[in-house]
């Protein structure tokens, strides 16, 4: 099986879709000739042409607006927003337009746009290159929201996103682009070739949107997480020798409630992790869902470990990032409760 890092996997997904479906186009800042500031679209313009892989003006609102129009005219645009921190100028076109077009037209119009954007911290990007705004988009009915944690998932889910007739906001945890970062920044970086998720078929395959994945199984507790935090969770559980059901949410909206429920009913304890700020973050929805679905199985409160409720600071990146230590403390506390 070929090895790919997450950038290569995403590139492969786009390459395949550009090849299979003439209606697929890629548009974004620096995505064309240059191949993207993270090199995710490297080589795609050369291969598929300037009318398929299109450099855009620096106007996120314009990019999304134009992508919607393209979608209405039969294309399947993949719009790249260079950093998730810069998605807000496009927020109106996403929340007011892209998300609601099908509904307001009784199904007569829709725009199958995929918005790809790198998110998350751990690269010393400070407050404008580190944000995790996924929670905001999960509050917008009509959107699907995806965040993969491995190259294998990234490719399969991106292909599904492009094929999906509904709009998908596709978050890419940039700290995972080159390796399965587990939160320990002092450790030398590890490449994807050391991780089974780095084994990625060359060819077309897709993974279902709407399905969470149990990435490791155990009876002690359930850990709900996605993106980078999946790896932090695994490392933390391993270090503690705890047997955890670690569930990679993968598709934040729609949420795979059944998988979550099954696990928490088994373990009775649940920890929720994300890198985004805690207050009103997506983790709140996970907690609320678990409480509503599994209250009587719960042996302890559902706890959250999240980014602090501050902007992402440059210097205190590792104090901010919800790393192994915080996760381990939370696991230990949770197992001791009652």
């Amino acid at each position, binding site marked *: 099986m070929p090895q790919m890092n997450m950038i290569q996997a995403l590139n492969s997904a786009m390459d395949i879709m550009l090849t299979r479906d003439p209606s697929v*186009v890629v548009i974004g800042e620096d995505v064309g000739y240059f191949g993207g500031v993270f090199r995710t679209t490297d080589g795609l313009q050369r291969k598929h042409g300037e*009318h*398929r892989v299109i450099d*855009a*003006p620096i*106007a996120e*609102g*314009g990019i999304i*607006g*134009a*992508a*919607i*129009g*393209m*979608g*209405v*005219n*039969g*294309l399947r*645009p993949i719009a790249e927003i260079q950093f998730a921190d810069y998605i807000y*100028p496009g927020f*109106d*076109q996403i929340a*007011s*337009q892209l998300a609601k*077009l*099908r*509904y*307001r*037209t*009784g*199904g*007569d*119009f*829709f725009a199958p746009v995929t918005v790809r954007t790198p998110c998350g911290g751990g690269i010393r990007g400070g407050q404008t290159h580190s944000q995790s705004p996924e929670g905001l988009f999960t509050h917008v*009915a*009509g959107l*699907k929201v995806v965040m993969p944690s491995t190259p294998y998932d990234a490719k399969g889910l991106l292909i599904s996103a492009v094929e999906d*007739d*509904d709009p998908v906001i596709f978050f890419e945890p940039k700290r995972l682009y080159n390796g399965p970062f587990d939160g320990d920044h002092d450790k030398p970086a590890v490449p994807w070739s050391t991780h089974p998720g780095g084994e990625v078929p060359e060819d077309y395959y897709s993974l279902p949107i*709407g399905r969470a994945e149990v990435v490791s199984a155990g009876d002690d507790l359930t850990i709900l997480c996605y993106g980078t935090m999946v790896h932090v969770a695994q490392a933390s559980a391993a270090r503690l020798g705890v047997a955890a059901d670690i569930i990679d949410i993968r598709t934040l909206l*729609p*949420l795979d*409630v*059944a998988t979550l429920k099954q696990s928490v009913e088994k373990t009775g304890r649940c920890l929720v992790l994300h890198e985004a700020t805690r207050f009103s973050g997506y983790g709140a929805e996970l907690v609320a869902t678990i409480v509503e679905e599994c209250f009587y199985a719960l042996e302890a409160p559902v706890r959250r470990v999240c980014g602090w409720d501050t902007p992402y600071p440059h210097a205190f990146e590792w104090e901010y990032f919800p790393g192994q230590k915080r996760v381990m403390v939370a696991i230990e506390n949770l197992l001791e409760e009652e």
Partner: protein
Amino acid sequence: MQVSCTTCEGAMSNKPTLHIPHPPARPGDKPDFSYVALSDPGAVDRPEVNTSVRAMAYLSEELIRVMDDDGNAVGPWHPHLDERDLQIGLRHMLLTRLFDAYMVRMQRQGKISFYMQSLGEEAISVAQSMALRPTDMLFPSYRCQGLQVARGRSLVDLMCQCLSNTNDMCKGRQMPVMYHWARGKIFSVTGNLTVQFPQAVGWAMAAAIKGEDNIAVAWIGDGSTAEADFHHALTFAAVYQAPVMLNVVNNQWAISTFQGFAGGERRSFASRGPGYGIASLRVDGNDFLAVHAVTEWAAERARRGHGPCLIEHVTYRAGAHSTSDDPSRYRPRDEYASWPLGDPITRMKQFMQKSGCWSDDQHEKLTAELTQHISESWQDAESYGTMTTGPFLDRSELFEDVYRDMPAHLIEQRDELRRLIGED
């Protein structure tokens, strides 16, 4: 080249003061439209459609007019439409106006919840629609019902949308006038101003990518030019030379604010275009012939690959902003009577009568015919349900079309609502 006046109207100061635009007249004042820059009918040059933006920049500040005050059509922009087209044009305009008036009445009677009329602006939608191909895609604002009428939409369908009944193409999900028509290539009206502008550019980019020669056409109001999406649209249209026609309907008002609050005090809205490298024209929006000619010209330019156009239609919002608005609070009640460009239907009729292809008698008959058509359509529309009497849309429509396939959480919510209603 230098003149000594300041950029700021009024007294010259030697200190910055916050300039506040003022409309020329407020309630009680005598209407004053001296600020509207006019050109003489027939006076403005008509360049070839492939003229460079730079060479035609002057067109963004002139006012293209064809009909003069006596009902003659003059000058190079005269489209020389045949009788049949003129009659159709007049019919569509009149139908639009009568339909609007009827629906305003229905709103007053409490039969629909809200309405927005296009009184005084009928020439724009109707003439533009007629000058385009049926395969061109239209991205209307909420004051473009003339597009629907001119493309042959059944009034019953429009009425049913306003009634949110079982025949509503929006399935009850939108306020009145937020029509769309997929088969008729008319995009969905939304409450969010200006958002359709970059969408139209994207649609046009896609047409160019696919190698098709259909163009996209979009409309916004003068006030809406201040929104970000105006700039996005112009930038993307210029950069990619998208085959798109971007229309600004300058009807002088944006709810209570005068067009000066969008920058119209300083320069025409059309004159934004040349700075982006976009061909821009300013046209008498109450002159059916001028609007038709300009639209044909711009469509040909775009279709032949010579790039986008920005068109400013100079007109006047003769009615209230919407049925929720009372314009007598912010402008003279009789302002429309002083509007220098008259009424589009009156002028068209005058021109046709002068050309000998229309008579008062025909006009009266047509009015009667259309009036009857409208009230019959209303009967028909009501048969699909009203706000108070059935048939009603199925309530589970509330949950459809959020996604293509209903996800589990919406199925659950739908079922919860069903249970709740079952308990009624």
